[in-house]
């Protein structure tokens, strides 16, 4: 996303948007709260921290240390494409067309629907802007959900270890999932509050979606039959806090 430029009718006359090509090169995508049930049909959902604020974002995992496993030559092979994937080449911008594009994104090129025609933006641009606005709000709602779950200490690190035959282990760090033990130990008042605002149901779907890891593994092995992969979860055995007791050791 480093190559964002303002969409300019003068410069981008020939630029087209191919929705089916979106997603290549994207291992995770942020999700909006409204996408949970849809994306969980295909992908493991989990949380990752924002690098600038440390706050949790809800994300869909789409790769196992390599490229997006759903995005292939023939399009996006999933029942649902997350909005952040679909709109990955675009950002809302101030002034001008109101849209910025990343010309290097896989969905931007010579194929697909036109963004500019006869020197003016097409109606697609307004549609993209509206979708981006909805996504921003939906992502904010997902953040609020994550915040509520974190406040009740219902998130735990989800450390995935990938093992390829005859290759070194590779860890996927920085992902978090629902802590079902903590969920089971919630007090009554918290259960009621989280149930009423829908957080509990969302947490159950997110927890269940971990099983889609097997789907990712199958997709991976189907694409690379010679480099099969084993995916495991690394559980912490000891409390890191125990290390804090002494001055230096």
């Amino acid at each position, binding site marked *: 996303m480093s190559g964002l430029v303002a969409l300019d009718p003068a410069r981008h006359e020939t630029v087209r948007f191919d929705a089916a090509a979106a997603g290549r090169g994207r291992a995770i995508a942020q999700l909006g709260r409204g996408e949970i049930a849809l994306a969980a049909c295909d992908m493991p959902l989990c949380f990752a921290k924002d690098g600038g604020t*440390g706050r949790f974002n809800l994300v869909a995992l789409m790769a196992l240390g390599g490229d997006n496993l759903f995005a292939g030559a023939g399009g996006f092979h999933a029942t649902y494409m997350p909005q952040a994937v679909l709109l990955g080449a675009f950002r809302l911008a101030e002034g001008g067309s109101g849209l910025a594009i990343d010309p290097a994104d896989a969905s931007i090129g010579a194929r697909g629907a036109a963004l500019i025609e006869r020197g003016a933006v097409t109606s697609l641009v307004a549609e993209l802007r509206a979708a981006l606005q909805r996504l921003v709000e939906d992502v904010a709602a997902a953040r609020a959900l994550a915040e509520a779950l974190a406040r009740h200490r219902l*998130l735990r690190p989800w450390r995935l270890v990938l093992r390829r035959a005859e290759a070194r282990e590779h860890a996927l760090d920085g992902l978090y999932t629902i802590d079902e033990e903590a969920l089971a130990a919630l007090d009554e008042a918290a259960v009621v509050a989280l149930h009423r605002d829908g957080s509990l149901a969302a947490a159950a779907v997110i927890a269940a979606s971990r099983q889609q890891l097997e789907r990712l593994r199958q997709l991976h092995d189907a694409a690379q039959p010679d480099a099969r992969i084993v995916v495991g979860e690394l559980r912490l055995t000891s409390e890191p806090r125990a290390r804090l007791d002494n001055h*230096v*050791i």
Partner: protein
Amino acid sequence: MSANQRHDDAPVTEVVVVGGGSAGWIAACRLAAQAQRTRSGVAVTLVESARIPTVGVGEGTWPTMRNTLAKIGISETDFVRGCDAAFKQGARFAGWTDDSPGEGYYHPLNPPAGATELDLAPHWLAQSDAPEAADFATWVDFQATLCDAGLAPKSITTPEWVGQANYAYHLDAGKFATLLREHAVERLGVRHVLGDVARVEQGDGGDVTALVLADGAAIAGDLFVDCTGFAALLIGGVYAVPFRRCGDVLFADRAIALQVPYDREDAPITCHTVSTAQAAGWIWDIGLWTRRGVGHVYSSAHIGDDEAEAALRRYVGPAADSLTARRITIDGGHRERFWQNNVVAVGLSAGFIEPLEASALMLIEASMDAIADRLPRTRGAMRVAARQFNAAFTHHWARIIEFLKLHYAITKRTDTDFWRDNASPATWPDGLAERLELWRTQPPAPQDFDHAREVFSWPSYQYVLHGMRFDAHYAPIDPAAPESALARRHLARAERARAEAMQRLPRHRDLIRAVREHGLQAV
């Protein structure tokens, strides 16, 4: 049942803490949090004078503070926000070895690489004569490099209490007491009584039964924690437990403190304590979020108060011109016993020595680990607890005095009487003199100490000894030996950790800003 038996079986259910400084509120919070966690039914009352101020200094902590805060149930975010706290990765001692410009060394909070598996000191020493050889702290670990670069020990995505490098805090002492008080009263159910203790009632065998306040109210209890600071109301005033002075070993008996604002809003915040040697003492320099805390600790036998204040103002520069300095007298030493009858002294009432390694708050925490986590259930059990406590803390005090003296004893400075007197073996404790003899030919190791858990473990001694270029000659190193290969592996790992930390960790001020704005996550 005999009267003695009744006395011994009496349950301990009412604990009264006297004093509302850092010691009093840490004590009350630890006791009340433990009672809440275990539903033990123990009730905690804190009595403090509205008239007698707290000492108001004490801004450097140890990593132990992370544990203490977590046990009390205060989040790291609330702590950082509430106390204007900053992160501390150790101390840099400037000008202690000699007074040449730029001279200094680090005592970082990270242990040397591989410390649980091997001792790198002989390997460092074997190559330390080479041109361009790194100093000990930099060679064995990456934290000194982080300190030099002004980088934080963690990032905003690191969970609370966890660090890429080990860390402690710098905090505002006044705000710390306020944060602890609010937490104690609002969340932990501590009863807070404002009043001056005017009289103490004692029962059979001299146990304190109640404190009588100036307004006549009586506060009864089974165990009393004396946190009355230098007043030492119970341990000194009631029991007159003798005070063991150590001014013949550690000469500092005065402090002058200044609070210095930053000259601009985004001024870098130093991520370690800077201790700069002076003609007759040293100056501490501690960076908080809003200001620096700077102070001169010195020996009045070697320098006058006005001269010492002038030296402090020179150190700070023009920024000090409009600031008022606070003068504090230090009576260096500690009680011969800390727990007498049903009174246990915690904090300045138990003792105080110059804050060279910021050990006072740590001793409060260690005391409360012993008292709150193993609160005697009966008056009879208290006798055993007291004996254990007194033995452990007498040992800790002796070891702290020795470790502080080490910073002076091996100086190469000869410019003033203060440094010459410090280097004279006549002023060294026997334990230190004996160990220094050993350490000329062997690096400090766990076996050199009596306790399994020393307050200063062997790496601390190594950082100071080698930081000060102590003249040591260890057994030669064979580069082909298996242990040398292990050392190279650990050093290579430390190098990778250094490169990664330097690349990933944020500037110290940026991290604090992010924590204040967004908070740290629990996981």
